[in-house]
């Protein structure tokens, strides 16, 4: 698509902003850390654990500036944007430590600023500011829409809804769609009902049994304060990709609303939070895709590659810093690594490496540094070996969240269990060839993997002080993401 006038204006706006930021950054070095991840990937927990670890003194042996004692102090300061809610850090910590629950799913954007006082290796005192943004992961799915027209999006959404386990879930919407005529007169009631059925279908795909990821537009799932507005009342129609909409038709109405959605929702979101990142961590929850089945894994791969295409990645130069900031380090992190024995972490990393191969190659060619890591921001389990007959199963011990089901038994959130989630194959290609069964196609006894959801760990308060949160490789992630800025 040739760049429209609107795109050019947008670019100019972004460049002006970048120039302004560069001037500020001169006196007050800032790292904009993009915490990217689909919903339930663990963004909120990651941010909470990162802040908690830095401000309360966590165990970070691999994070060099911290381990060697050069970081004097990390503190929270008021954020730069007055219009964005503050990240409810204290509340999330309380939920995690005292109630032993995971923070509930994020419904709106929030922001926090962390300032690190440190001493450089040559002895000079410096500060580094880290801006972190938390947002519902669903919204991220909107970014690829920026480069698609309504017709393209319609065609893709329809094609997708006719594949695999989605067909069954989309049946009511498909039935209603068949009654609509795209060229017919515009009709608010028809638009309302088709949008509702479409949203129901998207919501159904998200169920744990299917764990689909590629479900744009994201605001349909997490509308925030936009619920019920015309910008959120549209749906794909069965129209030709290269056709033009007749005036006054249903098609034209939908198209107008789709464009409005991009203008009102997607573009500002991208401009304010993603166009100016320096470092990025992409959190991926591969385990729920293993639970659900091969289709969920393909979906995850497609969603990730679509999203990562939207970011500006490459080596930072003076010119790029001035006008078009680029992300020069990306860390792909397979979250919830504590749900596996550490001997399987390498295999989990291999799966993630395979899933993001395209995006990672592109980033490397552009000159960005990339790394893949299996991490757990808050470690909920311990490890154990289970000896059953002659078998020795590398397992984990933990308390499953209430409502989790295994062996046909529902847990109450108090019983401790040892679980062996199933062997990951040495070669990740086997998973991507569809060689395993998940909950979407088999009953829970037949599935090849079962990753239970665990409650946060029980932590002991030491002499009235807040305990530190245990983690897996959070320090390595930090070292990669900001270690070089704290030299």
């Amino acid at each position, binding site marked *: 698509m040739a760049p429209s006038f609107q795109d050019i204006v947008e670019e100019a706006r972004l460049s002006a902003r970048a120039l302004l930021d560069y001037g500020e950054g001169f006196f007050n070095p800032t790292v904009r850390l993009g915490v990217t991840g689909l919903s339930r990937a663990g963004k909120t927990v990651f941010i909470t654990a990162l802040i908690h670890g830095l401000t309360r003194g966590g165990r970070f042996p691999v994070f060099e500036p911290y381990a060697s004692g050069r970081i004097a102090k990390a503190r929270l300061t008021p954020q730069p944007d007055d219009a964005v809610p503050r990240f409810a850090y204290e509340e999330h910590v309380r939920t995690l430590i005292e109630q032993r629950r995971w923070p509930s799913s994020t419904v709106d954007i929030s922001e926090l600023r962390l300032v690190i006082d440190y001493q450089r290796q040559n002895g000079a005192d410096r500060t580094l500011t880290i801006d972190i943004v938390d947002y519902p992961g669903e919204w991220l799915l909107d970014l690829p829409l920026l480069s698609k027209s309504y017709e393209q999006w319609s065609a893709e959404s329809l094609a997708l809804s006719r594949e695999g386990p989605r067909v069954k879930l989309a049946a009511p919407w498909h039935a209603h769609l068949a009654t609509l005529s795209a060229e017919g007169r515009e009709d608010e009631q028809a638009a309302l009902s088709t949008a509702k059925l479409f949203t129901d279908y998207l919501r159904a795909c998200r169920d744990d049994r299917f764990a689909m990821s590629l479900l744009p537009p994201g605001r349909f799932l997490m509308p925030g304060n936009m619920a019920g507005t015309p910008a959120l009342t549209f749906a794909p129609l069965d129209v030709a990709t290269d056709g033009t909409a007749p005036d006054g038709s249903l098609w034209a109405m939908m198209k107008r609303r789709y464009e409005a959605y991009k203008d009102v929702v997607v573009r500002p979101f991208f401009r304010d939070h993603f166009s100016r990142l320096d470092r990025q961590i992409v959190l991926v929850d591969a385990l729920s895709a293993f639970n659900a089945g091969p289709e969920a894994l393909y979906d995850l791969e497609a969603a990730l590659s679509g999203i990562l295409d939207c970011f500006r990645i490459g080596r930072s130069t003076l010119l790029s810093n001035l006008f078009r900031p680029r992300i020069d380090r990306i860390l792909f992190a397979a979250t919830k690594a504590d749900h596996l024995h550490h001997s399987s972490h390498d295999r989990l990393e291999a799966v993630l490496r395979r899933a993001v191969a395209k995006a990672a190659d592109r980033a490397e060619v552009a000159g960005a540094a990339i790394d893949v890591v299996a991490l757990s921001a808050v470690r909920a389990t311990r490890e*154990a070996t289970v000896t059953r007959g002659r078998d020795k199963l590398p397992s984990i011990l933990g308390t499953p969240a209430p409502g989790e089901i295994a062996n046909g038994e529902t847990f109450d959130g108090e019983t401790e269990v040892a679980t*062996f989630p199933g062997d990951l194959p*040495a070669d990740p290609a086997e998973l991507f060839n569809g060689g395993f069964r998940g909950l979407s196609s088999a009953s829970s006894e037949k599935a090849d993997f079962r990753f239970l959801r665990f409650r946060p760990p029980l932590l002991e308060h030491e002499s009235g002080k807040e305990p530190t949160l245990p983690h897996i490789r959070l320090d390595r992630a930090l070292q*990669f993401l900001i270690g070089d800025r704290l030299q």
Partner: protein
Amino acid sequence: MNEKTPHRRPATFKLDDPGVVVMDSDETGHLARGTVRITPESDPSLLPVPIDMPLVPVRRGFRWGTLFWVAVGGLVLLGTGLGIVNLIEDLFARNESLGFVGLGLAMAATLALTVVIAREAFGLARLATIEKLHLRAAEVLLSDDRESSRAIVVDLVKLAHQNPQLARARAALAGHADDIIDGADMIKLAERELMTPLDQEARRLVSSAAQRVSIVTAVSPRALIDVLFVFVASLRMIRQLALLYGGRPGTLGMVRLMRHVIGHLAITGGMAASDSLIQQMLGHGIAAKLSQRLGEGVLNGLLTARLGLAAIDVTRPLPFTALPRPALADLAKDLLRKKDDEG
């Protein structure tokens, strides 16, 4: 999935189930048939390798000392040059043939000086390469970066090229170059292949130096001879270690190495003292009961061994990860055993 490890199905066991027993790994008890046994493992939060102390403290600020020595050196060189030019002019004024002899000698001296300086510079550069390699390897062990691990292995092989004993190890390593091995594992592989023979040789060098020192101290008539001998033997040992691991230190290189070794000893000495103090006092005490000189000999030998260990840390191009770091206890054992053999 290969035949060796068929996919194992997921399984969940409740800890309060009567058929499940939780026990530590050191407990051994007979279990009834069909009982599932769960052994909690130690906390793997210590899993990631802790960072080693940097071998060489990071330089801070401008190096005024270096500037001073460079400037003074330049002045001395200029002065000497001026003196020689004057001398040759005088010689020509007195007798032409004498002048030519003087000129020839001056040129020979200049040539030799150039070669010596070049060799020193080369030696220093090589030491710096090894130190940098060590740092890079330590970094890769943390970051697990595949690309840079490849680069390090290539540099290592280049460094090891001069050592004919490593021909087979180099070939084996080159064979793995195309395999898919993670960064940290690649470094460990290289360490196992290339460093095993060198480490054995290094250990032999250190223990033989320590042994010599202890014997000489035990029999020497004067303390001054002890001190001189210990100094010479230590220098020789450090030089041999550097040569073994691929460095070729000249005089300046030795000065630099010596500084790093002593600096490293100062950092690690405290730790080493705590874990081997008892054993050392025991050895010293018993030996001293037999004879005071013998006791001093053992003590001096142990000190030399400790210096040797620090020198190994500094001269080795890779940090110790896959292979065990030689401990003072091993060397002390060598020292006493050989003594027994001879005694």
